[in-house]
Each structure stands twice: as structure tokens, then as C-alpha cells.
């Protein structure tokens, strides 16, 4: 049982890293990314190929995945930044399919649908089976913590406030003299970096990857985590990631209580139940389990902030006039 909980916690860890990255991109900055699986696969294949085929050590493989994730994130956001909102969503979805189809068809590199085995794991000889699982969980936990701290630091900083301003209305941010494009590219790149790192950790954990592992369903789980947990709230989406995994996996244990159903029906009931639970969360808690904290000022706003507020009010008034 313990080893099961450890392995589920490890999977929750992957979800958490992805959810934190998505929160940075969407929850804070408002950029819709449906291409999570693409960056996840990119990281997994990068680290896998470099460690297995080129013989790099584990840490170098993960680091290379991070660099490549960042590079692709920046490139993709540059390419698609003039496309906004829904268009960006489609571009990212396309990117994920591109990565998956590349992995499926470029047989010489990725071995296509046969998949890649990975036997490189850090310190694999040191621990026994159970000990190793706990050790790997610790590695994942460290990365989750790092991603969380980076996210929190950004959220609390002036940088994060700009990101939120872009999310709410990028024209206002632009008017206030912020370089919206630069912020967007940076935030998207950092998010993609974390997604690729999660992919690398996943590959070394499961020890066998094929394009089938990186279907768009992964992105849906992560979106569920962020929405259920509370977009914009880093603690909330950690909870959300745990909750989604609990829905997905906890419902397996119901099989023992509905033994009167055959396996086919029981698995259908399980999938229906997951949907119902999520609908309930969204219905009764649309803002997520832990909504985003309201920005609290220090009481005495800084001069430029006061000025900014004034400008924003002015703009709002103008907008409402136009709208009316």
C-alpha cells in the first residue's frame, strides 16, 4: 500500500509541475496553452535520447530538456503572440500534435511507435525497490517545490502584477508602458521549461515512453487540476492536481464495491463518476477550491501605482462610454 501511495504521489508530482506551469501561463498571464502534452513529450524524449543514446548523465539530460523546453516555448510564443486568446490555443494544440507526430514518424531518432526504453536513473543501484520509489518521489518533490517557489515569487512581485494586468487587459498594460510581448514570451518560456522538466522526470520514472503516452488527454487533466484548484492560486492548484489524481485513481477502488457489474460496465461507471465529480466541483465552486487571492495593497499606494489606478479608471470610463 505504501509503495502504491508513493507512486501515486509521484504521478501527482508530475501533475503539480505541469499545473504550476500552466498557472503561470494561463492563471496569471491569461495565455491559453492546450499544448501541454507537446512540451511534456519534448522534455521526455530529449532527456531520454541524450541519456540513453548519447550516454549523458541524468542531471544533464533533465537540464537539456529544460533548455529545449524554454527554447521551444519562447519560439512558439514569438510565432503566435500576434494571434491572441483562442488562436493561441489552437496553435499550441497544433504544436502538441506536431511533437507527437514527429515522435511517431521520425523512426531513426525516436524509434516511432515502438517507443524508447530508458534504463538511466540517478543512483539506481543504491536503494532497493521501495527505497528507490521514495527517493524518486523526493526528486520530484524538490522540483515541485522549486516550481512552486518560482511561481510564488513571480506572483508576489511587481513582475507578477504586470502579468495579471496583461491577463485582465493587455491594452491597459501596454498603455502603462509595459512591454507586453516581452512579458508574454518570458512567462510562456518559463512555463514550457517546467513542462519539459516534468516530461523528463516522467520518462525516467516510467522507463518506457512512446507517442501514445502524450495524447492531448494529458492537457485536459492539467486543465482540470488548475480549474478545480483555483486558477491563479498556486496552493489551490496543488490541491487541484491531487484531487484530480484522486478522482482518476481513487475511483478504481470503487470496483471492489460494485463487483456485481462486469468489468466493462464497472470501468464505464468509473469514467462517468470522474466526470460527475468534476461537474459538481465546477458547479458549486466555479472559482476553484481556493480562489485567487485578491491583491492587497500596503495601504499607502506607491505614487506610480496611484497614477496607474487613475489611468485605469479613466480608461474604464472611456470604455463604458464606448460600449454604451
Amino acid at each position: 500500500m505504501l509503495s502504491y501511495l508513493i507512486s501515486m504521489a509521484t504521478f501527482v508530482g508530475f501533475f503539480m509541475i505541469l499545473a504550476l506551469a500552466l498557472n503561470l501561463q494561463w492563471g496569471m498571464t491569461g495565455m491559453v496553452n492546450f499544448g501541454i502534452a507537446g512540451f511534456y513529450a519534448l522534455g521526455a524524449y530529449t532527456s531520454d535520447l541524450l541519456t540513453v543514446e548519447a550516454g549523458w548523465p541524468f542531471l544533464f539530460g533533465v537540464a537539456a530538456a529544460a533548455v529545449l523546453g524554454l527554447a521551444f516555448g519562447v519560439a512558439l510564443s514569438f510565432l503566435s503572440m500576434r494571434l491572441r486568446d483562442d488562436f493561441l490555443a489552437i496553435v499550441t494544440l497544433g504544436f502538441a500534435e506536431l511533437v507527437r507526430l514527429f515522435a511517431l514518424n521520425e523512426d531513426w531518432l525516436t524509434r516511432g511507435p515502438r517507443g524508447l526504453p530508458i534504463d538511466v536513473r540517478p543512483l539506481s543501484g543504491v536503494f532497493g525497490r521501495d527505497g528507490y520509489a521514495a527517493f524518486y518521489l523526493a526528486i520530484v518533490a524538490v522540483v515541485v517545490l522549486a516550481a512552486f517557489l518560482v511561481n510564488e515569487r513571480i506572483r508576489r512581485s511587481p513582475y507578477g502584477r504586470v502579468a495579471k494586468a496583461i491577463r485582465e487587459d493587455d491594452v491597459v498594460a501596454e498603455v502603462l508602458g509595459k512591454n507586453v510581448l516581452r512579458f508574454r514570451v518570458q512567462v510562456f518560456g518559463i512555463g514550457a521549461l517546467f513542462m519539459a522538466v516534468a516530461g523528463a522526470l516522467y520518462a525516467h520514472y516510467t522507463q518506457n515512453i512512446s507517442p501514445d503516452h502524450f495524447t492531448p488527454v494529458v492537457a485536459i487533466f492539467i486543465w482540470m487540476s488548475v480549474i478545480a484548484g483555483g486558477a491563479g492560486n498556486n496552493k489551490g492548484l496543488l490541491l487541484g492536481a491531487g484531487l484530480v489524481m484522486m478522482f482518476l485513481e481513487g475511483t478504481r477502488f470503487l470496483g471492489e464495491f460494485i463487483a456485481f457489474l462486469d468489468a466493462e460496465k464497472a470501468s464505464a461507471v468509473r469514467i462517468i463518476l470522474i466526470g460527475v465529480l468534476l461537474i459538481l466541483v465546477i458547479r458549486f465552486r466555479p472559482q476553484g477550491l481556493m480562489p485567487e487571492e485578491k491583491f492587497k495593497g500596503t495601504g499607502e499606494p506607491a505614487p506610480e501605482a496611484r497614477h496607474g489606478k487613475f489611468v485605469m479608471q479613466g480608461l474604464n470610463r472611456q470604455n463604458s462610454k464606448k460600449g454604451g
Partner: protein
Amino acid sequence: MKITITRRRLLGASAATAFTTALLPRLTLGAAPLSVGSLTPNTGGGGPFGPNIAAAHKLVAEMVNGKGGVLGREIALHQENSETNPETAIRAARKLVDVNKVIGVLGTWSSSVTLGIMPLCQEANVIQMCTSSSANIPLKDKKGLVFNFMILSPVWGEAIGDLALRRGYKTYAVMALNNDFTKSMVDSFVAKVKAGGAKVLTEPFYYNGGQASYRAEVSRLIESKPEAVFIPSYVTDFTSVYKEIFRQGYEGKVITVSIATGSKFKKVVGAAADGILHGLPVPSLGSPAYKDYLKLVGLKDTGAVQHPFGTAGHDQMSVLLLAIASAGTDDVGKVRAHIHKIANPPGKTVSNVLDGFAALEAGEDINFTGASSDVDFKTPTGVLKSRDFMMWEIKDGKDVVVETIASAS
């Protein structure tokens, strides 16, 4: 201190309670039951076959439990859905291995799932029984724990190539759905027809499934005007591919695998399906085990192939339980050795798990012969030695048997 019940707390607490109670071990009486895992594709690409496999696992386990179990222990069967997706299947297998402590995970169907859960099964020393044709499976099975109840796909390609040659086709073109299953099949098909003096006119190529149209692919395939084309694929994409072949007016022979031409395909395509040649490894239709199986699942013996994968599910559970009975222990190392012992000759031929138990009790050696095949493995690997292979031609919307061959792998 005042405790307020917020919605958030209530939700959290109830979710936590539900989770922990679900995890609590259930009270059991008597000797500890023997846990066996079943991981079948009840939904997704394997959806048409998974439920049959799952039901067969359950039927055999219930039959044995009805007679007091194996080694005096009840069989606790834990069934999970792989969703034909390795990402999900890994977590389901984790539950089977780490929570239910199963001795084996039976019933995986697609190669990506079988390969995906292999590292964790090998690490935990758990037996795998599958019907996956990828030639990579034996290569990656370092511990000899994977028993495959399906012949590997190169054998399919060879059998189909052999028939095509005897039909007298001299020029071919080949394209296939891009997956693990078809890759090794194409290689062996091409090698076979080339060895037989025929020509493959264009380089074989692979297409991606799930496309709206296969126009470009089909044009490229028939460009060189081959006498016959070989297109191994699944039913979902083959229907669209075939439509395109028809539309472009190709008049040569179309050859594929039977999983692409099920009853739904014939219904959709209608008379245009006539003339397609297709083949599949099949249960040994005349064997007593196959007839027993049909009775067990309540089907009539129509003389046609039914449940090509359900029969394998029946054999998987039977072989595992007989090996445990023969080994007298649930120690995986010993059970593994006894699988070879009870499935392969020499010994008294038995085709049913209960007859097998009786023979073992009487101190006899047994050779289990199943509903899906003779279930003989190439010792020391878990690769199946042979399975009947049947070829059909569609005539007037119906499958007409062309021939049946026992194929060696």
C-alpha cells in the same frame, strides 16, 4: 475555538474520507486469497476485444473458486481498464501490483500498454500475460516473465505473404498504419514476397491514423499499378482508406488483416468489399477447448471464428492457475518455470483448468492445450510457438475461408 464548516472544508474532508475508506483493506476470512490482476482494454482502440478478455478471466477464476480455489486459496481477481492508453495503464498496473499484490497482470492487448507496464512489472517480479504482437516484447523481457498468447506480427506478415504468392500476384505495393504492430508485419511480408520472386514496386510507407482523408496516401500506393496491395491497419482507418481506393478506381487485389474488416466494415462498405483478402491468427476451431469455451461464455458453435481474444483470456487464466497448482506455491520464479512445464509437452493433454487440477492431483504431468492455441511456448522465452492462421476472402458481403494454416513463429 470556533470551527466553521466552509464548503471548501466539507469538500476536502469528504473527499479525504472517501479516499481513505476506499483504501482500507477489506476483511477476509480463511487462508489469504491469491491475487490475480486483469488489465484489459475495455475502452479505446481495444474496446471491441477487452470486455471479452475480462469476462473470460472472471469466468475461469469463478470456476476455480467454485471448486475451492487453488492450493486451498480463493482467487481474488482484480480487474482494471487500461483504456488502451499506456499513460493510464501504468497507474492501473501500479494499483494491481502495489495494492492488490497480484502475482500476474493478465490481458494487456496493445503493444504500447504491454511495453509501458513492463518496467514496473519486471521490477516488482510480476508475471505478464498478453496478446500483443510487437516483436519488441521478447527483446525487452529480461526476466522471462512475459507470456504472449498471440504470435508475433512478423509471423502474420509471412503467412499473408505466402498466400498472396500462391495466388500468383507478381507485383505489390505496401502501406500501413503507423504503429508497432504493423511495422514488423510489413518487413516480414516484403521479405516473404521478395524471396518468392515477386516485386515490391514502391518503398513501403506508413500513414498516421485518424485522418479525415487518405487521398494522397492511396494515390501514392497505387501509382505504380501493382497487381496487389497490402495494407495492415485497424478498422477505424481502413474504412476511410478503402473508400479512397474504391474512389480512385483501383482494380488490383486488396490484402489486409481481419481486424480491419469486421462486421461493421462490411456493413458500411457493402458490395464494394467483395474480393478483399484478409487473415488473422485464430482459435483452433475444432479443438475441445474452443468448444468448451463457447459453452462457458454461452455462444453457439457456428463454425466461424468468435472471440479471437476472449479465448486467449481464458487460456491466460487457466495456464497461470495450473502453473501455481503444479508449482505448489505462488513463488513467481517457480510459477514461471511451471508455466513452461504445464503448457508444453510432454504430459497428458488437458484443455480445461479443472481437468488439469485433477490430473496434477493424480500426480500426472500435463500439457495444457487451450481455446486460442496449443499454448506451447518457446522455452525459455514466453513467445508462443504457433497459432492457427486463417485467410478469408470477402464474397457477397461474407467471409469465405480460403485456407487455414498452422504457422510456426
